[in-house]
């Protein structure tokens, strides 16, 4: 089915800006390590990758394993909130199942803040969007992150690998199908807020290289539009792009992600250092449905 470009979508052709700029990317991964009698084991790890003069430098922070129980979940959550970010206390602490993702996001914001404070005249790449107003991305704190970067003449570009945003019934990235790369698609009149959720960036669809991939790209709304586009053009000249995705950000993802070996290693560490025993719960889905239960397991 062909998708017609609505008149509100504007294609912005891009040129390579050969004045090389430093690029830095941040990503954080979290993973469930197992369950204990008392709660859940998880681990988080962050990675920062710098691109400087044809070389990539990385710093991995972690892994940090956590044993989250009903008794300590509030304390752990508080530790993340208060020590790193000025995030107001919510009415209630998330349940154990959600706290893993929450901790990952809070660590990510902390690393992003660190980079914003440290970098100057740099292209800062985030994994995800500039959507604010959720528990782990309050509007004030997100605005502060962007403001610090802005004041130090850095530009934050947030790449989302997948987006749920739709426009005129179609997924946002589907509009880039026939666009001539490198280019950005800008959607005029895209709603900037929805309830408590607020978009702090201008939303684009980025198709930076030939190929099937295009990504939602958020650029700080408070910087002039031209400066934002210039930053993307600088990224084209400063970093390697494969399938429209910046290599620096790809490496940050790779270095933060946990492999199966690492999960086993962390399980061993936890067992040896803290004597925690991982319990294996019966797989109800498999018990009930046998091989037909597999499909849904993937979503667990």
């Amino acid at each position: 089915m062909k998708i017609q470009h609505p008149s509100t979508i504007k294609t912005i052709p891009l040129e390579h800006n050969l004045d090389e700029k430093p690029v830095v990317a941040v990503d954080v991964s979290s993973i469930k390590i197992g369950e204990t009698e008392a709660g859940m084991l998880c681990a988080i790890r962050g990675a920062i990758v710098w691109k400087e003069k044809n070389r990539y430098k990385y710093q991995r922070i972690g892994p940090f394993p956590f044993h989250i129980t009903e008794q300590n979940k509030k304390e752990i959550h508080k530790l993340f909130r208060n020590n790193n970010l000025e995030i107001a206390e919510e009415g209630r602490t998330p349940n154990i199942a959600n706290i893993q993702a929450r901790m990952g996001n809070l660590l990510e914001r902390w690393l992003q803040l660190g980079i914003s404070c440290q970098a100057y005249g740099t292209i800062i790449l985030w994994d995800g969007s500039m959507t604010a107003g959720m528990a782990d991305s309050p509007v004030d704190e997100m605005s502060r992150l962007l403001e610090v970067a802005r004041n130090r003449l850095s530009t934050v570009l947030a790449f989302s690998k997948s987006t749920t945003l739709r426009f005129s019934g179609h997924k946002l990235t589907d509009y880039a199908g026939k666009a001539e790369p490198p280019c950005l698609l800008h959607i005029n009149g895209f709603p900037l807020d929805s309830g408590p959720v607020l978009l702090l960036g201008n939303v684009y669809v980025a198709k930076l290289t030939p190929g099937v991939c295009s990504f939602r790209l958020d650029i700080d709304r408070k910087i002039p539009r031209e400066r934002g586009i210039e930053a993307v053009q600088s990224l084209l000249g400063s970093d390697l792009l494969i399938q429209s995705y910046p290599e620096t950000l790809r490496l940050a993802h790779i270095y933060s992600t946990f492999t199966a070996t690492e999960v086993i290693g962390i399980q061993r560490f936890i067992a040896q250092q803290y004597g925690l025993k991982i319990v294996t719960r019966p797989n109800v889905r498999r018990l009930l449905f046998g091989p037909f239960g597999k499909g849904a397991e993937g979503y667990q």
Partner: protein
Amino acid sequence: MRLYKKEGNTLQILSFPDDEVEKGDYLLVEDANVNRKLITQVIDVQFASVPGLLEELLRDSTTEEQIYGENFDPLGVSSHINHIQDARMLICKIRGTMLNDRLRVNSSWLPSRSKSGITKIPFNSLLAHLGGNEGLPINIGETKDDSPLNITAHDLDGRLNIITGKKGTGKSHLSKLLVLGLVDYKATVVVLDLNGEYTGLGLSAKGGGNEYSDRVHVLTPGANFRVSLSKMDLGVMLKILVHALALPGTSTREFKHIWKSLTQQGKFTLQDLGDAIRKCACNMHVRDALFSRYYSLVNSGFFTDDEESATGFEKLFEKTKKDGGALVINLKDVSAVDRQIVLEYTLGNLVKLLGQWKIKSVFLFAEEAHLYLRETYWEDIVTRMRHFGLFTNFVTNQPDTIKENIYRQADSIFLFNFTNERDLETVSKAARVDAETVKSLAQELPPHHCLLIGNAVKDFPVMVKVRALDIKTMGQTRLFFA
């Protein structure tokens, strides 16, 4: 170490680098609940198939020039991750079980995976459990755990053994060690020395005599090892003519008549034999055939009419009767035909003397026997001659020259390094051990290390570093760029 899997008599054990287990080591899998132990030998060490390892390696494979960095890991979790990456899977063969400290070959029992403890067991303590004949030890060298390994002279007595391995790995050295080990216990050893390697057995490394000087007798055919026809048995002579010199049947019959006639006349010189063939009233072709064999005998230089200088075979063994000794038949520089003449004479007389109970049992060490032993002798040696008291040890670097049935009957095999799959395939036909063990362990044996298989080690294969000997090394290759 943890028990992971069992398939047939193969056990897979998960281990980590700090367990320090290598190929050839013995492990004891102990199930305390049932007071039973499983004895296994590690035949291969592989990396454990850990999920996600490929991703891990790909991530770390980028060169420092392109990507560099550091890890902030305050808890030290990465050491545990590295530990998992280095996890090993030990492929082990079950060698037996122990029930109440008594060894059984039965391996049908399966220990508990969750409760069993696994420990390394030194080979000597394993041997202590095995018991057996303690007397007449021959020190072969050291096992992997640096403890001395002894076999006993009984393990060679009445047995068929094979020493094999590729060139330069130390086969002849071990063979010499066994020869001297037997001589220590006053045994008589006959060495068929193809390259003159054993002629220095009686000399120390520095060149002077050693403790074996008086008991090592080097016999060089044509020099100090010559025989006279008068002391020759017709049967032995016929073996030489038929097997070494390929004399046809009709001519053989004629030769018998000539020999009998000379016996009656009491004439037994080479000259007399030549005259008798010349005067023989037989077919011209037969005479020609006899003459050609006669000249082969004369030209070999092995036969003499001088009774003084001739060697009496029975007398040779008198030298070794009291204190034992090694009779080294130096076949270096002896042509292929002459070699066969000497061998037919030697083996023919040996069997005769053994059959008449005139001498005690003899240990025979034959290097590259395929070069001088005729086809029919192989089976004769391992079956018939064994009962007469001739116990053979074959030494070869070409295992495929020894027939499969000989491997199957071998009591012990001293296996040195082989890299060639085909060679290993041949040796693995030995009935005393599984093919996987042979192939896996022998391929990585360093020089002067051998894998002992079979009766000498009570069917528990063991890797051993062969000890040095204070003897003069002979038979080195003459080099161009020396």
